């Protein structure tokens, strides 16, 4: 069944599966270029919508992630032009370059994402709560400092340390995977 101006159910399912793999990469791209989660989320939604709308033009022989990153890149370029901000870290050239790089680094980034899930699981107590305040409740370090009576600088330092140790855990996991010998006969 095909709706006029829309896509078929079969195509929707295919898009859904492809989008599953691409979404974390595109999300990472936006969140790196726009440190504000809300702006990044908005652009992600717009990109998803645009991808759905243009899906009939997608060439299956190409990488889907790269294709979507192209759409994402244009959304970001447009966003930067309409939100003049002296905190923009990336000019147009850099935004284009990054879109290409995220596409190239997709396997590496996916591996890091998986490792992060394992590493986060072992995190408990105060450091985990701090991350939840920052990333789930979206409190800035200044607001966390306000709420706890801690020094804002201390909060930033703690966040940096916790992220650092997660990063080190990821590196350890990834280097271990390269050392894994192939299991004889699978398992």
């Amino acid at each position, binding site marked *: 069944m095909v709706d006029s101006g829309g896509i078929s159910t079969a195509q929707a399912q295919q898009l859904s599966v492809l989008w599953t793999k691409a979404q974390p990469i595109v999300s*990472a791209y936006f969140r790196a270029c726009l440190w504000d989660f809300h702006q990044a989320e908005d652009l992600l939604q717009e990109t998803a919508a645009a991808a759905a709308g243009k899906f009939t033009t997608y060439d299956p022989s190409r990488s889907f992630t790269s294709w979507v990153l192209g759409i994402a890149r244009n959304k970001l370029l447009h966003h930067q032009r309409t939100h003049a901000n002296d905190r923009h870290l990336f000019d147009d050239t850099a935004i284009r370059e990054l879109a290409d790089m995220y596409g190239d680094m997709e396997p590496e980034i996916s591996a890091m994402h998986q490792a992060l899930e394992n590493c986060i699981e072992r995190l408990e107590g105060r450091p985990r709560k701090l991350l939840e305040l920052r990333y789930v409740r979206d409190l800035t370090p200044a607001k966390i400092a306000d709420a706890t009576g801690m*020094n804002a600088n*201390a909060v930033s330092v703690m966040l940096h340390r916790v992220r650092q140790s997660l990063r080190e855990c990821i590196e350890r996991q990834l280097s271990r995977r390269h050392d894994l010998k192939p299991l004889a006969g699978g398992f």
Partner: protein
Amino acid sequence: MRDPSELIAAYFDDGLTPAEVIELREWLEESPHHLRQFIRDSVVHSRLRDVLIQQDMRGLVRDEFFGDTVDPRRIASLLDEEEMAAARRAREQEERAERQALAAARLHEQLDRKLMRIEEPRTSNALVYATLAAAAIMLVMLGRFTGQRPEPKAAPQIAKEQPVPAAPPLIAEITKILDAKILAENRPIDLGGKLRPGPLFVERGAVEVSFAAGAKIVIEGPARLELVSPERARLISGRVVAHVPPQALGFTLRSDTASFVDLGTEFGLEVDNTGVTSIHVLDGEVALVSDKKNDIPSRTLQRGRANSVAADGAVRDVPFDEGRFIRHVPESAYELAVLKSRPLAYWRLEQASAGAPWTSEGRLALSTVANAGVAAADNLEAGRTPAGPSRAATFTGNHDGIDITANAALGLVSKCTFEAWVLPTEGPTGPRRIYSTFDRPRSGIAIGLVNGAWYNFPNDDLKVHLTAYGVYDVMGTETVALHRWTHLAATVEADGQPTLYVNGALTARQVRSFVGAEPDKPVAWSADGPTPVGRTTSGVARIGRNPVGSDGHISPERWQGQISHVAVYDRVLSAKELRQHFEATKSAEIATSAAAQESN
């Protein structure tokens, strides 16, 4: 410029100044390699939100996280503001749909966890969640395209934690003690005792308390504390050192006027009897948050800094004093007694082996190394009678003693105390130095033993011997036995007056003074001779023999036998203190012999 990784981290927390934004931008533009590094550095930050939302929906604010510094109602209103500010209805609707799908998947996840030990990357599960999450968003989007409107589902209530009234939880345990008397909630408690929130009084001794969250504190009696939670405690009076490993980051010790939040790893805190709090950062970094918020900003202190906080909240920089705190529960009561007297330098000599350097304890951390001919002696193993240190350094033959890194503070020759445990063995007649600072002829001071025959006395036995090179010799009249452990000490007043102690008791002495002596004429010994101050040195020192000396003409005067627990103090210890040191070793023996008597 700051390390790029630090700038990137600050960028994600919105902490870059406009100038730093430019710095970072320029660094990124320098090379594609930098861009790739940026991408890697940003992975954790970009992905954390999704992973945390997936893994634990209940990880919201709980009161105990903030303890007693913040009004919980204030946090709630703060969060409400955030909710309202982030009023993106469409996005919230989509998130709810996502959560519902995830909630269903989590049941499967919990079952899976029981089946699979999670060492392998959970590829399939991760993909399932990601699929559902992404699919949820996509389906809503697609719904729009196919003309359907998403049904607003009833928002699932995020279950609030019900406060469960229960007995106060166990938050800490007593993991090490030495010669301690402890009261928890006014009841005596011993090694292994578990602690709940409440008062803790260490009347004497040294106690290590390990908190459930991972931090450890070493308390020097007498001290009073109030334990609050696995991550918080309050020091009311006395001295405490906190050791905080990475997983317990944020452990907070507070006094009445300020809180000290550990950012990793070790700091000493003292509240004296005037209510002044002092903090000395021994390692890592600490955030000091002053309670009286008049114009006194919070600050971060790094290793080597010390601050005092007055009762009115005024914060001042003070000199850092590393030796002020007892950082570990000592192995023996003697060691505790020595550390409490705050030695300038202290060498336990339990692990001396030629060639392997170690660091002295006390206020000066001096690199020390044993030379050839010096070895570690394990007296328990050899079955020797106790009543002495179980481990010591043994010096034989033409050894070269133990070298100490020179330090000007060791050059003192007055207002000082020298102390050691020694077990002399046979050796050539002459002075045998335990500790010496002779760095050139007629300078420095040395403590040791000497046989009477060296000075043509009829009695050849070993006696305590203190020499202020070129100024005077002092000898005790009491014999020091061979093959037995003896505690020796010597103090020198500000005017040069020496006092000798054997086994914690003052001993009579004779003096031979070179003041006003004619050259080449023998100098007589007498009960009282002038004992002016000797000559200070550059701070070269050795244990077990004289240092080599700048002109090479100083005779080694080697020690033969064992030496243990050498301590140097930059003040005169009282007779009472030295007696207490000596008695500290006897307490164990007294306890066991009393028990033996009772059972007879």
